[in-house]
């Protein structure tokens, strides 16, 4: 048995109903680390990138990294990969909670799901024994009921990851949820799982995850834990206020997207900010497996007139998506929408982005009155009711607008003849940073392999959060291509290793690769380590190119490149994408159309 990796994967053919164990391709594991990288390598080998993402030809991979299940800081991540139903490129959504480690303890690094089951099923992995079981009794059920039911009929300690009604109804903004509220959120991975008639994967594992050099690993981890516990970002901001700590900051500098990115400041930002949450609805904070940060919010709506509920969240991105971006400044509405998204298993960012796009289409009169007449509410910015009801419509594809919204914001806006009102890249909605006030984020959104995403190259760290003397001017294009490339490569190593990006203020690449070495027994250098991240990034890119994406898809909507944003620190700014993109391609070693050049592939060892 290798160290770090378990050295085994589980291959499930849903068409045949077969489940079998096979050895992990260790050569690929060493080249692509694990998780995101290794999952991409398998997809690249096994599916045609041009296939229909909702067809049986697509495959869904659940992947853990070599650090998943260890006590490395935040070593509890897993990823869901497939061809994305939303972007038609590669999808890789990352989630925490406890499911990933449990899969490792059961003895698997990856689960590969193929084909399509003739009837709803769920997969039960009980250490070495795995089987597909009938899921007709939980089909249509929300996440909470599904988890409770499946846990009752498998093992009280089973961890469950699955889809809700949104994924079953093939909503392209559906996600996969584990442990009731941790989401592998983006790119419609829930729809891909739904198209396979697979409701959930329940897993119980009791085996070991050994590491190659226990003493060294222990020393590195305890050092990192101590520093994470002392660093203000991880121990104060994230632990104290969660990601919601960003709301007030973004609003104060003028990049909190509001009303579908028509403004960068929101009148009611204070009502939905981190401190307000901590003061009013927060019950306590929570951590995922092996997490020394504890950013999750356990909340409960109390004393609100319209809405009720309890659960985890909201994250900053959720607050923006169903809050400011829809003009909603009522905290209980944001919370209720958050809980609904968790129960339906909808990606909060894309669900909110889609609703915001619909609101602007309505605002500008692009939706015919007969379509709007189907609704029993007013589809307008600031309407609490609209947000809540739209979530239900898009989950169950109710009515014409519900059916269209389930396709995601881009397809909705395109249907009504105004795709430019969709705020995103590669058909995936932007996250909560207006790139006109952080140009590097603009380049990051445009070049992200999984469609617009804040996490792939989180240049907010160097554009706004870094100490002033280390900062890159957020309003210029200078240095942004290099910064994005570096951050993207680094993020690929972190995702692939199985840890959370939130550690990266402390766990730099220079601290992560020794942990990887100590865990796996490999002996890579820092340079080789970052090269592995670059390799992952390029393989994703080639997958996308083969799927039909190219330079034409590395874009931003005209609002970002032509309509200036002003307010607070942002003065009359647009994103000058073209020069950044040109420099970025050059640094990446890609040709003018965005294809990696032969020498780049040779350098990275991609055949």
């Amino acid at each position, binding site marked *: 048995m290798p160290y770090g990796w378990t050295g085994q994967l589980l291959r499930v053919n849903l068409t045949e109903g077969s489940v079998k164990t096979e050895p992990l391709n260790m050569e690929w594991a060493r080249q692509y680390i694990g998780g995101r990288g290794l999952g991409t390598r398998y997809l690249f080998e096994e599916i045609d990138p041009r296939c229909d993402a909702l067809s049986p030809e697509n495959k869904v991979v659940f992947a853990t990294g070599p650090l998943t299940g260890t*006590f490395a800081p935040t070593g509890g991540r897993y990823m869901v990969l497939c061809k994305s139903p939303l972007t038609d490129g590669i999808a890789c959504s990352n989630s925490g909670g406890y499911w990933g*480690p449990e899969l490792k303890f059961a003895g698997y690094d990856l689960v590969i799901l193929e084909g399509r089951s003739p009837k709803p099923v769920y997969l039960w992995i009980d250490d070495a024994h795995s089987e597909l079981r009938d899921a007709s009794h939980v089909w249509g059920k929300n996440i909470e009921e599904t988890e409770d039911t499946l846990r009752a009929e498998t093992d009280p300690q089973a961890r469950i990851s699955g889809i809700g009604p949104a994924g079953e109804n093939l909503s392209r903004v559906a996600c996969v949820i584990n442990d009731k509220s941790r989401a592998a959120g983006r790119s419609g991975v829930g729809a891909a799982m739904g198209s396979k008639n697979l409701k959930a994967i329940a897993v119980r594992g009791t*085996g*070991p995850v050994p590491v190659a050099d226990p003493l060294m690993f222990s020393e590195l981890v305890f050092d990192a834990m101590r520093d994470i516990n002392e660093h203000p970002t991880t121990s104060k901001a994230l632990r104290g206020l969660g990601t919601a700590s960003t709301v007030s900051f973004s609003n104060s500098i003028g990049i909190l997207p509001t009303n579908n990115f028509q403004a960068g400041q929101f009148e009611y930002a204070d009502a939905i900010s981190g401190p307000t949450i901590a003061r009013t609805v927060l019950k306590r904070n929570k*951590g995922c497996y092996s997490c020394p940060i504890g950013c999750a919010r356990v909340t409960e709506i109390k004393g609100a007139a319209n809405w009720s509920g309890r659960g985890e969240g909201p994250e900053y991105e959720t607050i923006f998506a169903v809050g400011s971006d829809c003009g909603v400044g009522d905290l209980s509405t944001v919370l209720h929408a958050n809980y609904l998204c968790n129960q339906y298993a909808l990606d909060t960012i894309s669900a909110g982005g889609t609703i915001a796009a619909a609101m602007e289409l309505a605002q500008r009169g692009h939706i015919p009155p007969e379509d709007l007449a189907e609704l029993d509410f007013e589809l307008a910015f600031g309407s609490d009711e609209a947000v809540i009801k739209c979530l239900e419509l898009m989950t169950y594809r109710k009515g014409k607008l519900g059916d269209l919204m389930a396709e995601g914001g881009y397809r909705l806006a395109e249907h009504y003849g105004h795709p430019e009102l969709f705020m995103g890249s590669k058909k995936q909605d932007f996250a909560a940073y207006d790139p006109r006030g952080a140009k590097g984020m603009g380049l990051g959104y445009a070049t992200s392999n999984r469609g617009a995403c804040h996490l792939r190259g989180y240049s907010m760290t160097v554009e706004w959060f870094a100490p002033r003397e280390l900062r890159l001017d957020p309003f210029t294009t200078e240095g942004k291509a290099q910064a994005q490339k570096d951050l993207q490569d680094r993020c690929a190593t972190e995702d692939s290793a199985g840890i959370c990006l939130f550690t990266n203020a402390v766990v730099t690449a220079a601290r992560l690769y020794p942990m990887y070495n100590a865990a796996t027994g490999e002996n890579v250098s820092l340079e080789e380590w970052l090269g592995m991240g670059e390799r992952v990034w390029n393989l994703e890119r080639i997958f996308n190119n083969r799927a039909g994406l190219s330079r034409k898809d590395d874009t931003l909507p005209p609002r970002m490149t032509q309509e200036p944003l002003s307010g607070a620190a942002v003065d009359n700014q647009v994103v000058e994408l073209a020069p950044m993109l040109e420099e970025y391609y050059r640094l990446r070693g890609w040709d003018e159309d965005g294809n990696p050049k032969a020498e780049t592939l040779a350098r990275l060892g991609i055949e």
Partner: protein
Amino acid sequence: MILAHPQKCVSCHLCEGACSFKHEGAFQPAKTRIWVHDFVDEAMYVPVTCFHCRDAPCLSNCPAYAITRDPVTGMVTVNDDKCIGCKMCLVACPFSVMGFHTEKDVAHNCDLCGGDPQCVKICVYDALEYAEVEPIQWMERLDRAEHPVGAG
């Protein structure tokens, strides 16, 4: 002994990882000697491990006399070579904090890592504390019973 402060616990299970790593040389929560019980819907996470009870039911119920108490520190220990794997101690323990090693076929409990408990060391949330005296006094227990974590 290990004193837990459930109100500070965030359910990261780092203590289980650290415990199994120390005792088994690998990360394996199934063989841990400290457990975090998650009451997800109640937002309550409770780490529990051996209390080294003053009147220990595991010790007095062991038919093989395999469980002994250190006369100086008061620590309750399972002696591997005497344990017959009958699990009477697991049944007797009122807190269910006696573990069982399925491969060695012996019971095991918290051994305080010889005075440097790894669970306490890894817990950045200060939810675990190492105390050499019996920490939970009678009044505090009453207080906890009246004001359970997560209530209100």
